[in-house]
């Protein structure tokens, strides 16, 4: 486990930077439709923000933001979200991963595929985030 090192500079800079990094990660995830970006890249940036918190604030404080168990669970949830997004259109009469058959009221046709891609990207981002944070937490845990 990382212990906290008392340094006001590091702590303040970390507290200032992390929200911007997280907003930028959300931007990268949702901007995948129009330019470079997407779930993999955005998920890694989001994970990097939580790793920065863990490095600067130490384990005890940072684990309140995202507990290690919750991180792994989030990763599993992301992959599950992707798989279920494929399965739901199958229930609605389409084929596996055929977003055109997602039962979302109010949108149809190409818009529906747009929404489907967005859901899948969010799932990928959760998966990558959970795995990155999970590996980091298990790497740094103190061997006592």
């Amino acid at each position, binding site marked *: 486990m990382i212990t906290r090192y008392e340094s006001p500079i590091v702590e303040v800079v970390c507290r200032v930077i992390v929200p911007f990094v997280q907003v930028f990660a959300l931007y990268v995830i949702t901007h*995948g*439709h*129009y*330019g470079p970006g*997407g*779930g993999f890249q955005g998920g890694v940036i989001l994970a990097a923000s939580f790793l920065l918190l863990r490095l600067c604030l130490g384990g005890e404080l940072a684990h309140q933001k995202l507990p290690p168990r919750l991180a*792994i669970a989030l*990763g*599993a949830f*992301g*992959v599950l979200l*992707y*798989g279920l997004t*494929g399965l739901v259109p199958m229930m609605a009469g389409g084929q*596996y*991963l055929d*977003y055109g058959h997602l039962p979302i009221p109010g949108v149809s046709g*190409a*818009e529906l*595929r*747009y929404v*489907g*891609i967005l859901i*899948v*990207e969010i*799932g*990928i981002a959760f*998966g*990558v985030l*959970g*795995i*990155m944070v*999970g*590996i980091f937490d*298990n*790497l740094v*845990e103190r*061997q*006592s």
Partner: protein
Amino acid sequence: MKWLSLFILGLVMALLIYAETDLPDRGDPEAPANQHVSPLYLERTVEDTHTPNAVTSVLADYRGYDTLGETVVIFTAGIACVLILMRRRSDDNQIRKPNS
């Protein structure tokens, strides 16, 4: 033995370089790989998915099953890393027996 393997390596390299001269140029629009479905994807991505970025529409929609596998591979590899790291920790906690 060392010279033999070097000789075989050189032979395979010459063979590969010879075969490579027959491959189409990179980005050649006449190449078979660029003739089959790629033009359809590029033409219909906006009309099919409202997504101007063809990379994303191919990655997440046209080839969504592939990306699902990719995500599962990443997740499985990560879980395996986590499990191995946990195992190492619990091993260190135990007192070593003299004969093991």
